[in-house]
């Protein structure tokens, strides 16, 4: 059984007991425990179920490579699935539940199923099954499969995450990733050059493996050296160090993401839960260490079978042992350290099987001296199936697994050698080479990832480079730190050798199958990927079926696609694949390494952008007034505009109709502040505007306004608005709400990149001004009243300010510019005042307007009023495929100009084509409202069997003033077909019959606006 020992546990504080719960059972651990070590201390060997077969799963590793120990952590709005027990620091009140089982962890139906089916459920199973009959996949097979899919439970769908997140930008000369002895040494060396250094460590503690493995550095025990070095680094102000911060990805141009877990070890303490560091480093040192590989023997997935070095971690760091009678299996010397450590801690090593005929070095001798039974050239044939280890069968490594000796044991420590953690090196294109001696892929320093300047920007340090001995690791780390600092532009330094203790180790031997010629029964019980249940036999099958590319095998078997992304399984799987193909491992190659190194929270990625700062919300100066007065908001880009103003008990429809009638009969106010206002000034401004607009602007007289159209270079209508000429060399261009920034950018683009010799300056003054449309028969009255109250102001009479004229002056004591323009057909003024005074001006108008029946109106009323007049609306009549000619706007296309943006495009055959649909008005025969977006059908079908269409509705409304539906649309030969009735099939199954009419429905002579 696994248990806590009386001694050892360098990371735990036995004086601080911590209570937590697992599957509802109250358990105890110590401060400094991880959830994993605490579970082991409580003899919780079984921690989860595998993905496919629901096999019982126990802890295999001690770090983020752990594939099995995934739990649901927390409750309610802080619940999170798939948290690794090995990277979860224990805290008081921690609540964890195991995953992927029903009804319980111990008795799982899924396991019974898979016990029976597993021999059929091999790689490719789903591709070969459930093909007939067709409907069953959706209705029977897939629902069944989906129910068994997934690992952890989904968070509650109704709850919003209780935690917050943030980002932080940081710039460094040298970023060192990994706080083991290599990372510390690299940081120390780099910092000595004066470089600005950032050092990140994903765990809460520093030093990595070395304090566990032992050895001395500069005469100090590893642990003491780590502490000393940390203190030195902390004392330097060019060094920043951060624990609990994982570098999750390396991206182009030295961009690295750091994932800092601020409160996961102490939830609810306030402040952000995670902070995502957006780091720019000119050089990156990856001191990410190496990961031990499992051995491939039958039953290597039984709870209690663990990586040898991880077992040592649990012993030394947390004082727990997974068993009392341990079998150790290895192909290298490092596992001897585990045997020795366990033995010295009083744990019985029932057998150490070393696959190497020649056995190990110094450590092996020491083990024998301690009386540990070491057998060379031997292997594990099979671990007896079950929820924990009970029996282990030993056989000769070089055989099929016959002549087995069965021994009693409750845990197995295995070591298949070590693979450098190359993920971060590879994210941005770093290449790997195969190291035959160590049987692993390691970074190829000659083919490092390159940055904006084309130079390498990632250097590896320590065992991440390949070497495993302490002396080699420290030497490599020091060199890496110096190299990075120099590449970051710091003076070169001669690196002094770091003195370390040395143990001579015998070379490892690659062992991809245990025993070497294991038969199919054994291979079908030999796991490569523990979480996804991929076995040696699956990879061999994939190869046999022609899925020869490593990517094919990965995808066909799901090897390495689990939440550990194959940290333990990839190399072993590759070796099996290579063997099956009779190829060399380097020829087979690896799959692509993609970020993140280890999963990071979506919350952290989103950062602070949630709730009210999810996106910027643009507000006009009168926003709060609208909000208090019933505004029903409509998002328009990042702006929000009142769609209508609801009165208590009023429906949207009624509110809109009220506004529509009142504006025509009395007085309406529209907040038009969102309309774009661009000042264009300079000797060449007229010439410039003549290129930008389809019509002539250079001839506009100061004091006058003109409606203008803009097209893209591709010929399509992009924006419209009223242009006012301010003085000889100054124009003010109004754009649509959406157009302000877009058209400003459009102008700057042409001025900067095409006509840079033209003397024109543009300024966007959209937000400088609050603009109010004062509309209706009483418009002049209310403004004159304001002037009267203020004892004077600008003359707004028909004579003094005619239609399509503007002037500056004062209105009601406000410095204002008044435009006599109308988008409604009513007597209408648009008044611009300083944005800071917008609310005051609006208040004054509302107050003075009372006696004239003033009401604010929203965008829907605006749309209806313009539709009644047959005015087009960018975004309704236009959609990016419409040219001015389609809308009968030929009058706005200057014949005098040889060029304007879009003119050439409009001369192309399909644009200059009478068959194009043209703008008309549409009136339903029965007065009803045409459905939005409806198409008019013609005769027959096209070559692809689709019904032929002859037109479509572009805008459609109920007009309260005319008490009937009115619409505009584009219809083939439309203007030539006045009076014809055409059919619009609705989604409701009805056919709407509409007559083609003139688009001007109201006040055709335009008398009302000219009073």
């Amino acid at each position, binding site marked *: 059984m696994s248990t806590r020992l009386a001694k050892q546990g360098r990371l735990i504080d036995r004086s601080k007991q911590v209570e937590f719960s697992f599957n509802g059972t109250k358990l105890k651990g110590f401060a400094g425990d991880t959830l994993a070590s605490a579970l082991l201390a409580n003899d919780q060997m079984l921690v989860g179920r595998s993905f496919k077969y629901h096999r019982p799963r126990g802890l295999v590793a001690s770090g983020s490579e752990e594939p099995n120990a995934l739990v649901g952590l927390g409750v309610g709005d802080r619940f999170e699935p798939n948290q690794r027990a090995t990277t979860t620091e224990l805290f008081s009140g921690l609540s964890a539940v195991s995953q992927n089982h029903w009804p319980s962890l111990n008795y799982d139906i899924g396991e019974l199923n898979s016990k029976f089916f597993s021999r059929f459920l091999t790689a490719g199973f789903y591709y070969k099954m459930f093909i007939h009959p067709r409907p069953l996949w959706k209705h029977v097979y897939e629902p069944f499969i989906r129910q068994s899919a997934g690992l952890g439970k989904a968070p509650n769908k109704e709850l919003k995450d209780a935690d917050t997140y943030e980002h932080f930008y940081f710039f460094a000369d040298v970023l060192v990733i990994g706080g083991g002895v290599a990372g510390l040494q690299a940081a120390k060396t780099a910092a000595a050059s004066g470089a600005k250094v950032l050092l990140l460590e994903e765990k809460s503690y520093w030093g990595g493996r070395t304090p566990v493995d032992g050895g001395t550095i500069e005469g100090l025990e590893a642990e003491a050296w780590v502490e000393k070095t940390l203190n030195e680094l902390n004392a330097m102000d060019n060094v920043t160090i951060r624990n609990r911060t994982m570098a999750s990805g390396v991206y182009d141009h030295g961009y690295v993401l750091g994932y800092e877990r601020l409160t996961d070890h102490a939830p609810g303490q306030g402040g952000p839960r995670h902070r995502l560091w957006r780091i720019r480093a000119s050089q990156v040192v990856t001191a990410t260490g190496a990961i031990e590989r499992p051995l491939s023997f039958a039953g290597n997935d039984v709870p209690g079978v663990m990586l040898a070095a991880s077992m040592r971690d649990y012993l030394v760091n947390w004082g727990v042992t997974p068993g009392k009678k341990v079998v150790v299996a290895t192909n290298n010397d490092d596992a001897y350290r585990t045997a020795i450590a366990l033995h010295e801690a009083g744990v019985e090593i029932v057998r150490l099987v070393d696959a190497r005929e020649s056995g190990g070095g110094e450590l092996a001798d020491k083990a024998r001296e301690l009386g540990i039974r070491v057998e060379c050239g031997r292997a594990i044939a099979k671990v007896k199936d079950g929820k924990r280890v009970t029996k282990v069968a030993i056989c000769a490594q070089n055989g099929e697994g016959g002549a087995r000796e069965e021994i009693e044991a409750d845990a197995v420590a295995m070591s298949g050698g070590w693979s450098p953690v190359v993920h971060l090196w590879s994210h941005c294109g770093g290449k790997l080479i195969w190291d035959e001696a160590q049987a692993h892929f390691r970074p190829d320093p000659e083919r490092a990832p390159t940055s*904006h300047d*084309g130079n390498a920007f990632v250097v590896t340090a320590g065992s991440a480079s390949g070497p495993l001995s302490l002396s080699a690791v420290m030497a490599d780390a020091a060199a890496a730190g110096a190299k990075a600092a120099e590449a970051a532009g710091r003076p070169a330094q001669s690196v002094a050798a770091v003195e370390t203790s040395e143990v001579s180790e015998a070379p490892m031997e690659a062992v991809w199958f245990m025993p070497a010629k294991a038969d199919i029964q054994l291979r079908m019980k030999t796991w490569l990927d523990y979480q996804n249940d991929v076995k040696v036999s699956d990879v061999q099958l994939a190869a046999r079926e022609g899925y020869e590319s490593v990517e094919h095998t990965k995808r066909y078997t799901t090897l390495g696609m689990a939440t550990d992304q194959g940290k333990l399984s990839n190399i072993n799987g590759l070796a099996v694949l290579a063997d099956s193909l009779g190829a060399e491992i380097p020829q087979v190659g690896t799959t692509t390494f993609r970020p993140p190194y280890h999963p990071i929270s979506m919350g952290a990625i989103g950062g602070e952008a949630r709730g009210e700062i999810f996106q910027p919300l643009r507000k006009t100066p009168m926003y709060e007034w609208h909000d208090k007065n019933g505004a029903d908001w409509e998002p328009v880009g990042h702006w929000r505009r009142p769609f209508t103003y609801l009165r208590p008990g009023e429906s949207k429809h009624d509110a809109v109709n009220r506004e529509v009638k009142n504006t025509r009969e009395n007085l309406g106010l529209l907040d038009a502040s969102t309309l774009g206002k661009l000042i264009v000034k300079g000797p060449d401004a007229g010439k410039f505007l003549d290129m930008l607009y389809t019509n002539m602007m250079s001839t506009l007289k100061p004091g006058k306004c003109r409606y203008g159209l803009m097209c893209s270079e591709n010929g399509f209508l992009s924006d419209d608005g009223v242009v006012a000429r301010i003085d000889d060399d100054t124009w003010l261009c109004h754009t649509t709400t959406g157009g302000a920034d877009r058209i400003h950018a459009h102008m700057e*683009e042409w001025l*900067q990149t095409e006509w840079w010799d033209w003397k024109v300056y543009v300024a966007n003054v959209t937000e400088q001004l609050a603009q109010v449309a004062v509309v209706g028969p009483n418009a002049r009255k209310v403004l004159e009243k304001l002037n009267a109250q203020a004892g004077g102001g600008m003359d707004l009479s028909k004579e003094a300010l005619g239609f399509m004229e503007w002037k500056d002056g004062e209105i009601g004591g406000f410095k204002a510019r008044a435009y006599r323009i109308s988008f409604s057909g009513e007597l209408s003024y648009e008044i611009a005042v300083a944005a800071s005074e917008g609310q005051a001006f609006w208040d004054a108008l509302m107050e003075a307007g009372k006696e004239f029946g003033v009401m604010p109106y929203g965008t829907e009323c605006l749309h209806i009023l313009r539709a009644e007049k047959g005015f087009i609306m960018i975004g309704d009549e236009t959609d990016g495929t419409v040219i001015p000619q389609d809308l009968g706007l030929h009058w706005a296309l200057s014949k005098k100009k*040889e*060029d304007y943006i879009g003119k*050439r495009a409009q001369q192309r055959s399909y644009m200059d084509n009478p068959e194009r649909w043209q703008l008309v008005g549409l009136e339903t025969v029965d007065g009803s409202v045409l459905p939005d977006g409806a198409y008019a059908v013609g005769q027959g079908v096209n070559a692809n069997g689709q019904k032929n269409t002859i037109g479509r509705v572009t805008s459609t409304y109920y007009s309260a003033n005319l008490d009937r539906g009115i619409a505009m649309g584009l219809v083939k030969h439309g203007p030539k077909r006045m009076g014809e009735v055409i059919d619009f099939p609705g989604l409701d199954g009805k056919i709407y019959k509409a007559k083609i009419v003139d688009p001007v429905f109201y006040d055709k002579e335009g008398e009302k606006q000219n009073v």
Partner: protein
Amino acid sequence: MLILECPYCGVHAEETELHGGGEAHLKRFGPGSSDDDFHDYLFMRENPRGVHLERWRHVNGCGKWFHAARCTQTLEVFATYSAQTTEPPQEVKDKISAKRPGWSWREFKG
């Protein structure tokens, strides 16, 4: 996440301050041009796997458009330069040649 140095304000701007503007040194064809010329001007973009000359705008910055010489295969940036030019200046061509001997792009060569 690219970094480009804006030649106007000198900021080493990260991509989020910038807006990509597509192929550089386009020659505008207007009324009177042939269908082919106009078509090529609007749609036939250079799309090399390698050296590319392109436009960027420092939109969240000084607002200026500029040109960049960049490798689309490695994302190496050879140089950034003024937008007020119809062809890459000699020193820019030299910088590219130093890294990609024998390069060519439209009518321009190393």
